[in-house]
């Protein structure tokens, strides 16, 4: 094998082998779609693909970090719905837009803190804990409005979802910005290194003085805030805050992260992979949508992709002899 390439891969510079495989899948998928529907490569369609997955991606950034550090949060979808409803209620009842968004961030942060403390301090399994908050928050979202949506007529909140900066929709701008920030944090900061260290070997982290508990609780908080914000974006896109907002997003986020090569047991994976994983989901969703395949089949396809991703991950583990 070409040792230079192997070294480059190990160095974590540029695109590693695993990500190359993902990229090939992405290109093949786009190619297949192009045969079925040539206009897919038009600029508007490419931007729409990004828009389709923008909220998934925005949440996937902190979610990947949480996962890398050894945590899991499946309450993100419900968090989206709950915060969307909460902020919209405050806003339509006359609260200042920024103030209501701020309240949303604080509340979602506190809810993330609850997740984190239950998991890290009370030592309840992360899946069970966030499965609990998943159910509570979804129920709360419906209960707050009696199941109704809240129509958002004013323009300033709508900018979150429908605004444009140059040719890019605002959510896409946020998506790209957050990915760049996340990449910088993971690669160039001590915080990022600590995330890998804690996820790689929590005991060894303790022996160099890194507080794993505090780090992960912080990541639960950040993940919750991002999820709540994602819910707002969807509400703004729909101009209607529905209590069902975010349903299934936990699934999509997990798929993107796992597909991107982040190990669910933590310590291993890169944000670039998650970006490609997210794009694969985007191409699949948008492609099936635009070629008129019923959404039933989209759901099936996404489930299959998740299983394939996990199976590939296991194969890789086994081949590396662990």
């Amino acid at each position, binding site marked *: 094998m070409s040792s230079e390439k192997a070294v480059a891969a190990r160095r974590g510079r540029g695109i590693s082998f695993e990500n190359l495989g993902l990229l090939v899948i992405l290109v093949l998928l786009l190619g297949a779609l192009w045969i079925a529907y040539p206009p897919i490569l038009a600029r508007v369609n490419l931007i729409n693909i990004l828009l389709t997955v923008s909220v998934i991606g925005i949440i996937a950034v902190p979610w990947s970090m949480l996962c890398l550090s050894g945590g899991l949060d499946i309450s993100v979808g419900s968090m989206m719905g709950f915060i969307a409803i909460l902020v919209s209620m405050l806003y339509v009842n006359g609260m200042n837009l920024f103030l209501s968004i701020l309240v949303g961030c604080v509340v979602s942060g506190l809810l993330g803190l609850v997740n984190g403390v239950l998991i890290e301090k009370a030592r309840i399994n992360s899946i069970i804990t966030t499965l609990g908050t998943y159910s509570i928050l979804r129920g709360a979202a419906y209960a707050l409005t009696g199941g109704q949506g809240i129509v958002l007529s004013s323009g300033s909140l709508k900018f979150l979802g429908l605004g444009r900066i140059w040719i890019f929709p605002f959510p896409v701008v946020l998506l790209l910005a957050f990915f760049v920030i996340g990449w910088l944090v993971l690669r160039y900061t001590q915080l990022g*290194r600590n995330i890998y260290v804690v996820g790689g070997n929590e005991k060894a982290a303790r022996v160099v003085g890194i507080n794993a508990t505090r780090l992960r609780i912080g990541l639960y908080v950040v993940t919750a805030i991002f999820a709540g914000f994602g819910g707002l974006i969807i509400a703004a896109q729909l101009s209607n805050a529905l209590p069902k907002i975010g349903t299934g997003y936990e699934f999509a986020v997990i798929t993107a992260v796992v597909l991107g090569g982040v190990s669910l047991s933590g310590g291993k994976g890169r944000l670039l992979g998650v970006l490609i994983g997210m794009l694969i989901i985007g191409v699949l969703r948008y492609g099936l949508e635009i070629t008129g395949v019923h959404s039933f089949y989209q759901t099936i396809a996404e489930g299959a992709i998740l299983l394939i991703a996990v199976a590939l991950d296991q194969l890789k583990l086994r081949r590396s002899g662990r």
Partner: protein
Amino acid sequence: MTNTVIELHGIVKDFPGVRALDHVDFTLRKGEVHALLGENGAGKSTLIKILTGVHPRGSGDIRIDGTAVDIESPRRARAFGIGAIYQEQYLCPDLSVAENIFANRLPRSGILRRVSWRRLHRMAEELLAAWNVDFSARDRAGDLDVPQRQIIEIIKAVSESTLKVLILDEPTAALNDEEKGRLFGIIRQLRERGISIIYISHRLNEVFEISDSVTVLRDGRNVGTCAVSDTSKAELIKLMIGRDLAEMFPKRAIAHGATILEVRGLRRGAVIKDVSLSLHVGEILGVYGLLGSGTVEVGRCLFGVLSPDAGQILVDGKPVSLSQVPDAVAAGIGFVPEDRKVDGIIDLLSVRQNLTLAGIGSLGRMGFLNRKTEEARSRSWVERLAIKTPSLETPTASLSGGNQQKVVIGKWLDSKSRILILNEPTHGVDVGAKVEIYTIVEDICAAGAAVLMISSEIPELTALCDRVLVMYQGRVAGELAGHDITQENILSLAMRGER
């Protein structure tokens, strides 16, 4: 020849970077208790794993009852009549004794092949009666004590009709004297039935009490097999330890400076009862004690991993509170744990990332890392410590034990620790790397730091240390210096609490 059960000839087993077994011959006779002795890493467990089909042998012959065989899986080993009982237990605590014994062959009856509980319990009660034990087949396994559970495992192994050889790996590690007596009773019963036993233990007294013959392994070689009646403890110790390390590694004279660390009246629970010590710049202070004497806990207290109940710790003459690891790191203390795989290295991360783990705070500003500085610094450690690695980006897990250990030590050098607590620094490290690590330790001291070396390997204490504290049941039983640091002095303090 007819009374030979197992015959190993020229067994070689290599692991990456280490030859674990080097042309080992081993003969086990029918109905004998054969003790297998050796220090950590001498190759005992590898040999056992080859016999039980966990590892394939590299080369060499295995004969069972005179026929050459391959033991390619644990299942095959069982078919050959080789059973093993490990330190960890493999019982299901929520199942009954009877269910545990017959787990894989519950008696069935009727057209539906349903489990016949009555027959199961009758079979189990018969077995238990034959072994003269004090619990019933219907007891829940989890409610029994450790030796009782051990006996269940033995009975389970024996009841698989064909058992010829039973391997016991440190079976008395968790037993008190009375329980040990019960276990030895069972072992004698097994011997009377013609079952051969391979008995692994660190405790020489037990070897003389229970076994007929003994084999000593050292550095993967069989350095001696003989009848127990033909040997003495002193001779066995000499065989286990081999050449005096002091000959191989002459001690360097390093000037000692001021007291850098002082501990007064340290106490914690029932493990550390009263420990005081002082450590000077340039000094290597050894700490020795048998399992459970509190040496490991003292190291952990001094690094803030465990918090003491009482006692004072002074660094540079100033009292410090080491309630958390960051306090200890801030005080300039570094810590190399006894098992680097558990809390020493992060195996997924690269050599570079592991080397800068502790000193990462000085790698940039405001939480940002300077990658160039990081690479330069880790490269310099790789060169200075002679860490053999294909590149800085190699995952640390793929290095050999000795090189992993150098990485673990290197991260504390990178963070400029002045007090290094080394816990079993050469555990699982081959001889060549051992000497390299000793040189590093002396270099550290010569550069103005101090080392507290907690070790169970007496040769390295006698060869390397300026003073040795010996602990016995949570207290410092004595301090040895200069020519008094001898194996006999250390062992007698550790075993009896007095010289």
